[in-house]
């Protein structure tokens, strides 16, 4: 290896000193700016590893002299967001839903927040705008299984319906008249026919179906037990049967199948998933959808 590399006569540049069968390689060093960027990056990595969390240790890791980490960064972010909203959220927290509804500023704030929360959490079942689907009650009408007052809606959202693990959850269970052989198939047919007529406003005031309804169904499905008004009972979660709103279908076959072996819907409780203020905003939004009481 030559101490002084040879200069190529034609280009005037130095060679690397390598030679293959008389062919010599020109020395083309990396551009100076590139080399310097490389050195700066190395220096930067050293500084970074001192300032930020970097080196693993036998137990834990070196946390960096700046004390930064993703979790405390997040906590600061969340605090800032809470601070920005606190003007309204503290008021919402301190008030009942019905009071929020009366305060125009708060109501509008809750409506916007509730709308966003509804899209993420409620719309998968209750559909956009509370349009409902088979098995998932419509929230945009004025029929409520468990009550449509602001507080009733709040309770339903907070504790859910028929949740396996929540002690406060709303619960009702309709008797499986067919499966448990409390009614014969003929009797089920008769009462289903009566309910179908009731839902069309054509209920007879006597007959087998009428008698069975008064005896077996009116406790939960009539406002006055022992009559066949079919107004429903929100305390017990018994839906009204005197209109065409049905959760599991309104044909006579659907009704008969529900009498034979009822399907029961389940709604998850939200008290552990959403904050109290968020649940109140949702209640305001749901109350506004069409038929809040």
């Amino acid at each position, binding site marked *: *290896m030559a101490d002084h590399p040879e200069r190529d006569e034609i280009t005037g540049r130095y060679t690397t000193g390598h030679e293959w069968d008389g062919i010599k390689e020109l020395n083309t060093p990396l551009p100076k700016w590139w080399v310097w960027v490389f050195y700066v990056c190395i220096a930067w990595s050293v500084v970074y590893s001192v300032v930020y969390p970097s080196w*693993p*240790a*036998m*137990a*834990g*890791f070196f*946390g960096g002299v700046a004390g930064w*980490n*993703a*979790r*405390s*960064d*997040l*906590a600061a*972010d*969340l605090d800032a*967001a809470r601070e920005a909203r606190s003007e309204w959220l503290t008021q919402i927290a301190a008030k009942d839903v019905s009071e929020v509804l009366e305060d125009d500023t708060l109501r509008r704030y809750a409506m916007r927040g509730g709308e966003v929360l509804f899209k*993420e*959490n409620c719309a*998968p*079942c209750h*559909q956009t705008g509370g349009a409902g*689907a088979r*098995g*998932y009650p419509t929230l945009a009408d004025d029929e409520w299984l468990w009550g449509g007052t602001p507080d009733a809606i709040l309770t339903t959202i907070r504790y859910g319906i028929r949740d*396996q*693990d929540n002690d406060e959850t709303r619960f009702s269970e309709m008797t499986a008249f067919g499966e448990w052989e409390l009614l014969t198939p003929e009797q089920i047919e008769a009462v289903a026919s009566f309910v179908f007529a009731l839902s069309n406003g054509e209920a007879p005031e006597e007959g087998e179906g009428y008698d069975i309804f008064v005896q077996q169904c009116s406790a939960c499905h009539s406002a006055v037990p022992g009559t066949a008004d079919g107004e429903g009972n929100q305390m017990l979660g018994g839906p009204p049967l005197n209109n065409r709103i049905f959760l599991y279908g309104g044909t006579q076959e659907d009704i008969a199948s529900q009498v034979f072996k009822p399907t029961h*819907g*389940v*709604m*998850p409780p939200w008290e*552990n*998933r959403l904050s109290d203020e968020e649940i109140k905003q949702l209640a305001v939004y749901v109350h506004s959808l069409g038929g809040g009481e």
Partner: protein
Amino acid sequence: MSLIKQHKFLETNVFLLILGIFITVAVGGLVEIVPLFSIGSTIENVRGVRPYTPLELAGRDIYVREGCYNCHSQMIRPFRDEIERYGHYSLAAESKFDHPFQWGSKRTGPDLARVGGKYSNEWHVRHLIDPRSVVPESIMPGYAHLAARPLDYDTIAAHMKTLDVVGRGEMYTPVDGAIENAVADLEAQATPDADTSALVARYSDFAYGDDRAEDEATTMALGDLDGNPDVITEMDAMVAYLQVLGTMVDFTAVDDTRKAEWIR
């Protein structure tokens, strides 16, 4: 003459070149491997986290088999937008019984790390059979076949044993009787009105350890999950798995001192 100019000597001596390569690779390897020797001391032990029950584990296998991870991640990152949508950020400990983990970064669909308890069992069944029947704008394919296929769980005990070996005996060995009673546990969880006390006690004991309160029980989906009580289907297992995701740690019970521990 500087040392760097001596590389010709190294490059033209095969033995020295092999030695040099070996030393270089060894340094790179050690930097990655040595920290793992102390991994036992870096894993967080979080109250409530437990291995999957046999039914949930079978559901998890179906989740992997169907490639759900191609569109769904299971990791809520510590950012405000994620937390406001999905809930508390995921802890490393919540994935400690996942093999392989399902973190991912591909979100064609939403993150599923805390989907457990968000919807009813019936919703999951309907959604898996025909996603657009409940979410009109969804582009998820239907998985109706899950409801039609009986779950094959003959090998579930062996599967758990294997995972335990892979987990260096820290997965199902500490859950008293988990492997011996795997089939019974699986059937109990998926059968309506079955006696699930042994199953729940087994996994609760592990989840809450020595300071488990009398009435404290780990959450799991119980009973007929797919609307068909006559047979245990793959849908039952899938729903059991989806319903436990992200529910093991009770974040409402976490006081500020415990949070400070996480925020080092």
